[in-house]
């Protein structure tokens, strides 16, 4: 098969994406495909895809553009099949405000939250209602950009007085911020692949510094991982159940990763989903797959096979 691997782009996750993309490219070549890499940050994408038309695009783009439905819509227009979730569902899944709403409607547990829009602060005087956010979600809470990845712009707020600065930091990355209750517990990631989606073993995340932030994610050795997670079987079952329900609620397909936190009672709370999960050497989905005996090439093969055929 002719496979264009899309990686790079113009987001702060560019470097991470290129690392994912190069690993996927090697895996594709190992599988015997005629594969090449396109970096939409360097090459005009549409032109490049028309010049050398692939049978399928593997999306290894992270962050805006790659995960928010933009690239997916372009590929729909060009009628080129692609890995993962369809455009509209990407748009919802990538936006934490929309995604959390969809999860809550489907009774998937997600930490209580409120959304704060930048323009509502600037033009509608929403700042006077900031205290309501704390009333609703309590302290400590976590403030995140609604549309960003890799924990960029994410902050923890312990005192109410620190909320405005955290909101400003999140709004630097996105037009809106999500303020949610911080759930203490064990961080886990559940990878899902195939059609229908099936889970790979749950990965437990133990950041040495206590916080799974950008540095903890991308500095080798800064975080310990256990796969399968060191939790009771019922907890694993609850995690896989919640992740499958989350995927269904959001219309995810082919490949995805659900990030969750397991509280002291063993109950999982879904934090977010990733429609183009990282495939780097420090990434969670390949780690979970490895625990099930799948190589990166096996994993890529399953992802590729789950792409609906053209037309």
């Amino acid at each position, binding site marked *: 098969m002719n496979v264009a691997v899309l990686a790079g782009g113009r987001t702060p996750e560019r470097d991470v994406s290129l690392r994912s993309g190069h690993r996927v490219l090697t895996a594709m070549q190992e599988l015997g495909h005629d594969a090449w890499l396109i970096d939409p940050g360097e090459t005009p994408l549409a032109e490049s895809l028309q010049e050398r038309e692939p049978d399928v695009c593997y999306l290894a783009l992270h962050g805006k553009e790659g995960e928010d439905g933009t690239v997916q819509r372009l590929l729909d227009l060009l009628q080129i099949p692609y890995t993962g979730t369809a455009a509209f569902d990407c748009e919802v899944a990538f936006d934490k405000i929309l995604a959390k709403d969809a999860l809550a409607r489907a009774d998937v547990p997600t930490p209580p939250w409120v959304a704060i829009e930048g323009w509502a602060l600037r033009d509608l005087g929403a700042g006077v209602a900031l205290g309501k956010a704390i009333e609703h979600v309590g302290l400590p809470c976590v403030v995140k950009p609604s549309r960003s990845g890799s924990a960029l712009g994410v902050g923890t707020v312990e005192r109410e007085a620190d909320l405005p600065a955290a909101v400003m930091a999140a709004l630097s990355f996105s037009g809106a911020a999500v303020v949610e209750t911080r759930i203490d517990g064990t961080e886990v990631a559940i990878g899902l692949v195939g059609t229908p989606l099936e889970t790979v073993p749950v990965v437990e995340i133990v950041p040495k510094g206590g916080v799974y932030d950008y540095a903890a994610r991308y500095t080798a050795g800064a975080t310990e*991982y256990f796969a399968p997670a060191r939790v009771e079987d019922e907890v694993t079952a609850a995690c896989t159940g919640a992740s499958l329900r989350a995927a269904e609620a959001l219309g995810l397909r082919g490949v995805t990763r659900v990030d969750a936190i397991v509280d002291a009672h063993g109950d999982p709370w879904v934090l977010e989903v990733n429609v183009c999960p990282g495939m780097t050497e420090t990434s969670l989905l390949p780690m979970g797959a490895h625990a099930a005996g799948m190589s990166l090439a096996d994993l890529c093969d399953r992802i590729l096979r789950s792409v609906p055929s053209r037309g």
Partner: protein
Amino acid sequence: MAEFSIDRFVDLYAHRTSGMSASEVRALFAVASRPEVVSLAGGMPYVQAIPEEDVLEVVRQVLDEHGTSSLQYGGGQGHPALRERLLALMAEEGVEADAEDVVVTTGAQQALDLTGKIFIDAGDLIAVEAPAYVGALTAFSAYEPRYLQIDVDEDGMKVDQLEEALVRGERPKFVYTCPNFGNPAGVTLSYPRREQLVSLCREASIPIIEDNPYGMLRFEGEPLPCLRTLDPENVIYLGTVSKVFSPGVRVGWALAEQSVVQRLVLAKEAADLCGSAFTMLVTERYLAGDRWRGNLETLVETYRRRRDAMLEAIEEHFPDGAMWTLPAGGFYVWVTLPEWFDTQAMLAAAVERRVAYVPGTAFYPDGRGKHQMRLAFCYPTEDRIREGIARLGSLLEDEEQLYRSLHP
């Protein structure tokens, strides 16, 4: 169950590497290097001002005159011909020296590393100006010092603060400063403070590390004597050709007492045996004759116009409450915003608006500088600088509006 070790040597690394980690700011700089972004972040010299034919000619001379010996290993102290030539370069700034007291390094950056290596044991106190060149801090930090930070104002390092610390009984191993159009603050240490610093350190037997990459990039005013000139025995002087010729040749040097030089040479040999004979000789030939002076004049004139463009644009676009330095040379303007600004958090929004800077926190060892930023005027054209400052100005205005809306 398997524990996944991403890095199977993770428990084996030296403690001094613990501060080396991935960061959001680095991730954003990957985007900031894109052509549509006006980068006021990096301090890249405008090497386009060096005519290619000048370089070709000296490369040919090196091969003609030195043949394959220019492709061979050399001594750890650096090629004697280059060391002689560097004396002439230093003499331009009034520094007199002997070629035996010079050790050529891979950029002045290696001189910083080697200085750290020969002076700092883990836990030692060293004094640095605050803010200080980030590359000096990262070089020193690998040797795990404690920092005594001496604030900087428009006249450079506040030497009184250092004096107070010495009176309190603090005994730093050395004092690090970049006295001419310093990186990042762009300020110059005043003459009275130079005298005060030199005599204070001499009395206390504390060596001064004088980092002088920008001294020859003066736009106006009279040059001040180097610290090294004021006290040749107690000052370790670091120089570089990165700003007068090319950072690509990686030629810097340290000038110091023989006892220090000997240690630096041994440390240099342990690190990389010797510098590149080829680029040392290319540099030597480039600095022979007078061609380099004309090129330097072009560079200084270019930087001066860019500085003017930046200062005018800042004046026009930055909000009330912002303060900035007025550099008389060098590469940088240092901006201090009202306390509530967080320039690190704001960087993503800046890059989104296609402009980049370096957040102030990079220039302090202890996380200060949240409301400050460094702006480099050396690389973009004047039009791009004006465009970049306008973008930044409108961002600052929007941030201020957002801040007010969050604090009704």
